[in-house]
């Protein structure tokens, strides 16, 4: 069954190409591309002047700063601890290792709203951890700190799961060679073993960051949601929509998307570069 001209596709003995591809493209267009087109068109219909006005509104800027800032910090924290957790899971054997390994996927499986109210309860001034923090004069819930903690929860599996397979594939003979050459354990780990993992670590960081920027459900319960102070960008989009300010919502969404795609591009570039350098990721 020829659906595309032969210059675009290799003829094959298997049937069903046209049907399968056609259906896929139809679903893709209807569910993904058409709605996105609506966004792009809407963004384009707002003239550059208006676009800039909305984009540079203090409230918008504050929201974007908050979203990107907290996502960045959370991603950095996850990079450090995610690497540690991956290391411990891959290289050590201890009771409960399998369970912990499975548990790392919890943020993937747990609905964001559930995580949100749960963390709000824990870090609220009268919650288990929040009350301890209060004694130290530290307020967690309803502040950016709370947002960071929520984003750490969300982003953790991205780092761990991206680093784990790479760490598993590191050959033991290079470590042995390093030790035989007289290197201390610390040096071996940081100069011989970890460099293999850095590209994956970077990818994990980028994924956690991208996810954190767009996160909504797990954040709005623990954030204060006070404009200019603790209001995240996705929330601002929702508020604009409730006010029927479609234009405003579109502008913020477009800015967020532009940065998300830049991240995707960056991830692919990193993976491509590391593949040429190291052979696989």
């Amino acid at each position, binding site marked *: 069954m020829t659906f595309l001209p032969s210059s675009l596709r290799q003829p094959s003995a298997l049937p069903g190409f046209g049907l399968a591809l056609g259906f896929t493209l139809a679903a893709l267009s209807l569910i993904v591309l058409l709605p996105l087109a609506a966004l792009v068109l809407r963004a384009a219909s707002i003239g550059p002047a208006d676009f800039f006005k909305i984009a540079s509104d203090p409230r918008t800027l504050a929201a974007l700063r908050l979203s990107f800032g907290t996502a960045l910090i959370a991603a950095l924290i996850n990079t450090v601890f995610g690497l540690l957790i991956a290391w411990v899971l891959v290289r050590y054997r201890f009771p409960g290792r399998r369970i912990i390994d499975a548990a790392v996927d*919890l943020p993937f499986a747990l609905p964001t709203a559930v995580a949100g109210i749960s963390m709000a309860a824990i870090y609220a001034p009268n919650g288990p951890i929040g009350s301890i923090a209060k004694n130290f004069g530290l307020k967690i819930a309803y502040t950016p700190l709370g947002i960071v903690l929520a984003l750490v929860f969300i982003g953790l599996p991205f780092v761990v799961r991206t680093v784990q397979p790479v760490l598993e594939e590191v050959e033991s003979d290079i470590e042995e060679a390093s030790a035989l050459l007289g290197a201390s354990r610390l040096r071996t780990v940081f100069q011989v073993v970890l460099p293999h993992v850095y590209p994956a670590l970077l990818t994990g960081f980028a994924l956690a960051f991208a996810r954190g920027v*767009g996160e909504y459900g797990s954040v709005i319960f623990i954030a204060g949601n006070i404009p200019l102070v603790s209001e995240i960008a996705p929330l601002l989009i929702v508020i604009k929509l409730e006010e029927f300010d479609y234009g405003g919502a579109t502008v913020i969404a477009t800015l967020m998307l532009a940065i998300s795609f830049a991240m995707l591009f960056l991830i692919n570039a990193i993976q491509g570069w590391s593949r040429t350098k190291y052979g696989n990721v």
Partner: protein
Amino acid sequence: MAMSDRFLPLAHTPERATSETALTKAVLIGIAGLFLVAILFFPLVTVFIEALRKGWGTLFENFSDPDTLAAIRLTLLVAAIAVPFNAVVGLAASWAIAKFEFKGKNLLLTLIDLPFAISPVISGLVFVLLFGAQGWLGPWLVAHNVQIIFAVPGIVLATVLVTFPFVARELIPLMQSQGTSEEEAALMLGASGWYTFFKVTLPNVKWALLYGVLLCNARAMGEFGAVSVVSGHIRGLTNTMPLHIEILYNEYNFVGAFAVASLLAGLALFTLLAKSLLEWRFAGELAASSRRN
């Protein structure tokens, strides 16, 4: 340095020539463990503790509240539509991509992955821009008395968008690695395309399909941001379970909110369990176990 490894009572694997001291290992495991308990374990346990704060009786009362039941029904309905649809799309996409050579494959793969890169709120926003009252097709819809936004169809669409890539991402790498020879053999033996698909291809990917469906379902039932935007938050009508949790929480009915949350948390635990089981037993038949994301 190697000597003190012998003091580590937990190692089952042979000693490595190069390894950290037992103390270092213990400390690292300790830090990792503490971190995980604080960040992962605590929130999970809190859900159940708070749900039971007023006892089992109240918990079951909360479950049988009519608005809660409506929310549960809606969540199940949305998942029952979104998951099979995305499963079929996933199968179609992986058939086309894995069994044939054509230009533009990479572009198609990127497009399929697109929903993963978009914030859930934006996934809802795009449908409002398309079908909302002031949206692209808004006037046409109003004229024909069709309600998509602030009604169930909108919720279904937003959920489908958000969970679009899940099944495809599990199937494609696996089917690519399986190649086409079994299908070719089946065709040579006289089977039709559909017969080959159902009797040869599908059995070869059944565990990966189940895995993808599990993940897709967990996300479909738990989706909040996208659905929040397109729903009208109308109690008893357009509230899924996550939205209902939000409403209860905002009314300071914490126990009620956590009660509903505990149901979803239970689903999450089930998903994790099933997922781990599949990974553990069928690692060779899930491309997922070598590429986690």
